[in-house]
């Protein structure tokens, strides 16, 4: 039933890898796709799979644990913390979109793109069927 936990990273972005991992997990949990009790890959597994330094993974896991999204159990895999069994309320989820859209809005202003044009583009992106991860 559960959506398998898989991470993707982009290099060349101004978003450090540990933050990309945190954001993906926050979004998946908010959407109810990754749920309480689901186990995360170990630091070792994920470091090898993504070919990134293990400290980058432990940093992301550690910060997510501090936020209360993950729970650590001695000798066992990290898992999504209790209390994240259902999707967050829609109004909380949309708040998570705010920083990204804020940045997009600022860039639209800088580029001198009209509101209508920008909304058209966003509309099309939402409908684009091959943007699998977003749907």
């Amino acid at each position, binding site marked *: 039933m559960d959506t398998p936990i898989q991470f993707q990273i982009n290099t*060349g972005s101004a978003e450090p*890898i540990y933050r990309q991992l945190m954001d993906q997990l926050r979004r998946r949990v908010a959407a109810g796709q990754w749920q309480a009790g689901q186990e995360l890959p170990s630091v070792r597994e994920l*470091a090898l799979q993504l070919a990134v*330094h*293990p400290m980058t993974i432990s940093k992301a896991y550690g910060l997510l644990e501090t936020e209360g999204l993950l729970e650590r159990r001695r000798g066992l895999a990290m898992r999504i913390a209790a209390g994240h069994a259902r999707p967050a309320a829609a109004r909380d989820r949309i708040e998570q979109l705010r920083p990204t859209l804020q940045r997009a809005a600022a860039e639209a202003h800088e580029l001198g793109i009209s509101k209508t044009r920008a909304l058209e583009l966003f509309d099309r992106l939402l409908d684009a069927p091959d943007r699998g991860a977003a749907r």
Partner: protein
Amino acid sequence: MNATLPSHANGAGLGLLSQAAEPTASVHITGLQLGYRGRPVLQGLDWQMHPGQVIGLLGRNGAGKTTLLEALLGLRDVQAGTVRLFGQPATRLDDAARARIGYVPQASDLFEDLRADELLAYFRSFYPRWNGAKVEALMQRWGVPRDVEIGRMSGGQQQRLSIIRALAHEPDLLVLDEPVASLDPLARRDFLRELVEQVLDRGTTVVFSTHILSDLERVAFNVAFLQSGRIGLQAPLDELIDETRLVTGPEPLLATLQGVEVLARRDGRRLLRHVDERSLPPGLVAQRASLEDLFEALT
């Protein structure tokens, strides 16, 4: 500073500089100077590496990365300064310390008349430790033929063999000079995994120069920028990306910035650390910096 050192470290290395007292440094370079025909390349360079660190060395072409890595390994006469590996002078390592080092040079230094299996057998005789199973697995996975003379292999095959040779004795310090230049993307990814595994299993210290920034971004937790003959800056990459902003605008406005750490200045732009974006005067634009931006500003 002293408070953070374990108590047994106090008093170790008496008579040395306080930093040299840390017993764990894999590499410790101070005041390194080296030049060619009167042209200075390294100018009083200081650098340290600790176990488990993976450090990406960044610098423009001709900045002296290869010279630095060769000097680090004790392969070059230096004009001034000291290089110590595992606490020993790099030019006078004992056999035990030498066996803890793996090196992949930029240009292949393999014996071209030998076949891969002959070469590996030859090197095996020098090392007390040799992971034959790993060698076997990598030769298979990376498709390196064992019965072809090295001189007849492709550049990519030679580079793979050079990497296998450097990993075979499970070094504690791995020095890689453009190790992936002739590898295809899949082989590069596989090589990075191999590095990650070394770090996980052995806490290997890795220093690694490359122009392929995406590789560095993955495996190098720390980046070091070589500029004007010194390591101008070394820091964890994600901290750098989090803490720096590229600020652009008219030069007179930029000149008014005060009380911020300026990492680099070019006409019309500054790379600033720990800057509060809200405090910038109108007319200046702050952006987050990618590794590529950092490379441009800091090398």
